[in-house]
């Protein structure tokens, strides 16, 4: 449990609190998802609702990885958010947890391939891309995407990446820039 040593109690509470806060904010987006799904279902494109909003749901992991800069923070951030969501808003049950693991690991992978050194646009873009690829691979099986027509698959992939980049990349950067300017992270994290 070497990786666990780097984590302090306040880091763990912080990352869990952020996950819950974001979850509470996302609850307000449920109506967007419902309206989009209902509107797109008759033409068989309801997956677009999921693709458009997925970046938002993957944001806790990407933000945690970018903000805390500890090994495993992206995975843990997303996993904790998913665990809490499972108990608390949890109509999706265990699949929430599996999604949490794939989304968190996807985000982590971006920081792994950039060797935990690029906390800039490169790292964020890599993370958005790996999250897209990993979660898409999982949806090929779980949501039966592998049976869809090719044009639709490509459309879904592109929309998903845009969503990941917008919410996980651009929004994360805007938020962390505000945190940098306010110097609040200096007191908790030195690196």
């Amino acid at each position, binding site marked *: 449990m070497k990786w666990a040593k780097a984590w302090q109690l306040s880091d763990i*509470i912080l990352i*869990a609190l952020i996950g819950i806060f974001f979850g509470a904010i996302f609850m307000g987006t449920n109506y967007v998802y419902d309206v989009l799904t209902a509107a797109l279902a008759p033409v068989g494109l*309801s997956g677009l609702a999921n693709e458009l909003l997925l970046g938002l749901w993957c944001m806790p992991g990407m933000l945690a990885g970018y903000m805390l800069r500890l090994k495993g923070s992206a995975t843990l951030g997303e996993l904790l958010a998913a665990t809490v969501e499972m108990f*608390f808003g949890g109509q999706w*049950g265990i699949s929430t947890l599996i999604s949490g693991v794939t989304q968190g690991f996807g985000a982590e992978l971006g920081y792994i391939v950039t060797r935990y050194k690029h906390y800039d646009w490169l790292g964020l873009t890599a993370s958005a891309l790996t999250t897209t690829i990993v979660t898409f691979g999982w949806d090929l099986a779980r949501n039966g995407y592998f049976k869809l*027509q090719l044009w639709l698959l490509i459309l879904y992939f592109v929309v998903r990446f845009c969503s990941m980049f917008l919410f996980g990349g651009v929004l994360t950067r*805007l938020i962390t820039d505000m945190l940098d300017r306010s110097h609040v992270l200096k007191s908790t994290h030195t690196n």
Partner: protein
Amino acid sequence: MNPSIKLLLLFIIALEISFSLIISLNIALVILAIGYLLLHHTKCRTIGWLLIVPLLPAIGLWSTQYINGTGNKTLMAWVLFTRIYAFVFTGATFTLTTNILQLADSLEQNWHLPSKFAYGVLAAYNLVPKIQHEVKIIRAAGLMRGQQLSFWSPKLYFKAILVSINWSQNLAQAMTSHGFVEDAPRTHYRHCPLRWQDWAIFIVGLGLIQLGLFVIPWS
């Protein structure tokens, strides 16, 4: 049943049905799960609610396959429709009968999860109602200045993170001042035993799902 063993079993079932194309198996899982929930005195209203909530996404998945799928479209559409319900109901057998405290105890005592993770997450989890309230406060404070803070506003998340940093330090300090020491050995007031019955149910459950997946010739 031991919470972490139950979670592991359901996790494996969810993983396996994600790759299966058997409609009857999904329905069988839903019926089994409803039986289990009724045995644990779950209200019929709750079960009815579980039937309604996933309906919209299930119809969405169904229509996507039915209109834009390839191969046997009808089969795949119904597989995905029933799979969502299998996820929701097997998941409910865990979330409606186990709470996060029991899971944290079990992970810490049976699987040696470092106690700082178990108690750190519990500390945060207990703030859920306060967090929901705080989000309303942040939004109201924005409105007073004429700022509409929506889910795409960085400022909303920024303020939420500021509060999180503040609370996490306060909570960590409070726990330390009450004698919580990171990485120190602990004794336990609530015991969470891992008995042989738990393993027996796990192995039988695992065997049954393999039987349903690979042996029974569902028509």
